[in-house]
C-alpha cells in the first residue's frame, strides 16, 4: 500500500483510528443515517396517530397521549427526529456561514434550540403520562 516515497504525514496510529482532521471520522454521517432510518417508522406512526386523532377534543387527545405505548414512541420520535435535524442544520450552517465565530455561535444556538424543543415536548408528554 504505502511505498518508500509515501508523503502521508499521518502517524500509523492516526491511520488506524481513521478519525481524520475533525477527530470525529464518520460519526456525523453515521448518526445522521442511523436517525434517518429510525425516523421512517417513527414518522409513519406519528402521522398515523395524528390522522386517528383528527378532530379530537382536549380530553381525548390527553388520554391518547397518556397511553404508555404512544408516549414512549412519541419520545423516541422526538429524540431521533431532533437529533437528526440538529445534524442536518449543522451541515447547512457549515455550508453557508463563512465566519468561523458566527458559525460556532449559530451551531451552538441550533443545539440549544433542539434541546429546548425536546425538553419542552418530552416534559409535556411525561406530565400527561404521570400527572395528568
Amino acid at each position, binding site marked *: 500500500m504505502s511505498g518508500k516515497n509515501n508523503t502521508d504525514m499521518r502517524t500509523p496510529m492516526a491511520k488506524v483510528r481513521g478519525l481524520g482532521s475533525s477527530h470525529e471520522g464518520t460519526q456525523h454521517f453515521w448518526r445522521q443515517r442511523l436517525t434517518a432510518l429510525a425516523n421512517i417508522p417513527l*414518522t409513519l406512526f406519528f402521522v398515523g396517530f395524528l390522522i386517528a386523532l*383528527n*378532530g379530537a377534543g382536549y380530553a381525548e387527545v390527553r388520554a391518547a*397521549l397518556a397511553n404508555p405505548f404512544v408516549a414512549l414512541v412519541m419520545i423516541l420520535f422526538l429524540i431521533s427526529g431532533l437529533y437528526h435535524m440538529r445534524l442536518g*442544520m449543522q451541515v447547512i450552517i457549515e455550508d453557508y456561514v463563512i465566519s468561523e465565530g458566527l458559525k460556532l455561535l449559530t451551531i451552538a444556538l441550533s443545539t440549544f434550540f433542539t434541546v429546548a*424543543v425536546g425538553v*419542552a415536548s418530552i416534559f*409535556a408528554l411525561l406530565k400527561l403520562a404521570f400527572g395528568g
Partner: protein
Amino acid sequence: MSKSPATQARRERPLSPHLTIYRPPITMTMSIIHRITGGALYFGTLLVAVWLMAAASSQATFDWVNWAFGTWLGRLVLLGYTWALMHHMLGGVRHFIWDTGAGLEKHTASKIAWATLAGSVVLTLLIWVAGYLARGA
C-alpha cells in the same frame, strides 16, 4: 491599478457553463428541495412542541391552539408540513438506495427523483384524505 494585458485576456475567455446556463436537472432540484424541506421541518418541530405543551396545559390553551391549527392559514401550514415531511422522508429513502451503490446511473437517478416528487404529493393527499375521513366531515 491599470489593467494588464493578462487581465484583458482573461476577461475575454468564455465562462464555463454555470447554474444560470444549465437547465436544472431534476436530481439537482430535488436535492435543493431536500435541504429546504429539512430546514422547514427543523422549525416545524415547534408546531409539535406547541401542540404537546397545549395538550399538557389547560383546556383553554389547547382549544386556542386547536383553533389556530384549524384556520385556513393553519391548515395551509400543516399541509405544507405534511408535504415537507413526506418529501424529506422519500428523499432520505432515495439516499439509502444510493448508499447501497444502486440507482446512481443518470437516467435511473432522474426517474427516482421524479418518483420522490410524485410520491410525496400522493402520500400528502392520502394523509389528508384519511384525516378528513377520520374526522367524519
